[in-house]
């Protein structure tokens, strides 16, 4: 058992395997008080395992997936939710790149890191939490950060969501919030309980009206990174 602090909530985890505790090491706090409690049953672990066709994931790994899913569903009650995306921070503002798995979100933020150096800091490479504080939206690092484990235990105001598509040429355009609804909804965990589902839809509505929304078509190149970086941050990049 251990307590982690994620998105400024203390979450007590009753784990069967040590894997999840090791995964959470940057977030563990030394306290007795907690806001949320989660555990998973053996049945839930086996259900998770059966979803993977190759059954190559261990019980310990499956437990960690189930635990995070439960945490994320519980957080909906507290004005926070999981947003599957790769998020970076530049000058104190958060930029979230969203796309189906495998499209190249991590690759793209890797390019920002490579070409724009110290200005760019990773917040989370895969599964950050978004949270409303009053009417502002913040993005938080979490222990669940994808295979590269790019995460920092930090928070930043979320400025932009940029959807990525692969393309041969690089182009970027603004999106309307209407266009973005389905794309964003596909990257959250929708609760199955009616009140919580309505809460989630409410948060999606507020999110889409708050942040700026962009669509990027790009290849893997310095030009792609320069296009998205200058457009989204508004920074001028001088030629070296």
């Amino acid at each position: 058992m251990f307590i982690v602090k994620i998105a400024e909530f203390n979450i007590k985890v009753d784990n069967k395997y040590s894997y999840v505790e090791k995964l959470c090491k940057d977030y563990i706090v030394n306290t007795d008080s907690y806001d949320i409690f989660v555990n998973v049953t053996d049945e839930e672990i086996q259900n998770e395992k059966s979803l993977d066709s190759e059954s190559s994931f261990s019980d310990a790994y499956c437990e960690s997936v189930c635990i995070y899913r439960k945490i994320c569903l519980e957080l909906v009650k507290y004005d926070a939710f999981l947003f599957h995306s790769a998020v970076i921070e530049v000058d104190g503002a958060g930029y979230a790149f969203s796309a189906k798995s495998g499209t190249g979100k991590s690759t793209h933020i890797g390019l920002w890191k490579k070409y724009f150096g110290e200005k760019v800091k990773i917040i989370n490479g895969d599964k950050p939490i978004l949270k409303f504080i009053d009417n502002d939206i913040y993005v938080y690092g979490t222990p669940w950060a994808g295979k590269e484990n790019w995460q920092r235990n930090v928070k930043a105001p979320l400025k932009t969501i940029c959807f990525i598509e692969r393309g041969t040429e690089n182009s970027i355009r603004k999106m309307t919030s209407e266009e973005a609804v389905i794309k964003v909804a596909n990257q959250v965990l929708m609760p199955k309980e009616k009140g919580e589902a309505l809460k989630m839809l409410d948060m999606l509505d507020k999110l889409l009206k708050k942040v700026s929304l962009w669509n990027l078509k790009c290849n893997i190149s310095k030009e792609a990174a320069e296009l998205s970086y200058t457009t989204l941050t508004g920074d001028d990049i001088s030629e070296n």
Partner: protein
Amino acid sequence: MKIKEGFVVREVAGKIVAVATGEASIGFNGMITLNPTGKFLWEKLENDISKEELINAVMEEYNVEYDLAKKDIEAFVLKLKSEGILCE
């Protein structure tokens, strides 16, 4: 015909969306968007309604002829059925 219990409909950033909760979420996993006509039909279908009653409602609301209303309704109902949204 009737939409399964458990769907919630809400406007999100200018689009009308429906998601399945509770029992309905076992048969349908995802989100549907509805244009204004779709929303009109959906709301009628939340209470048990026959195809003929639905056609009459559309003819009255949109001032269209029977055949056009019937065609559009049949297409819409077929889509809902194929997604597991209507009660069998």
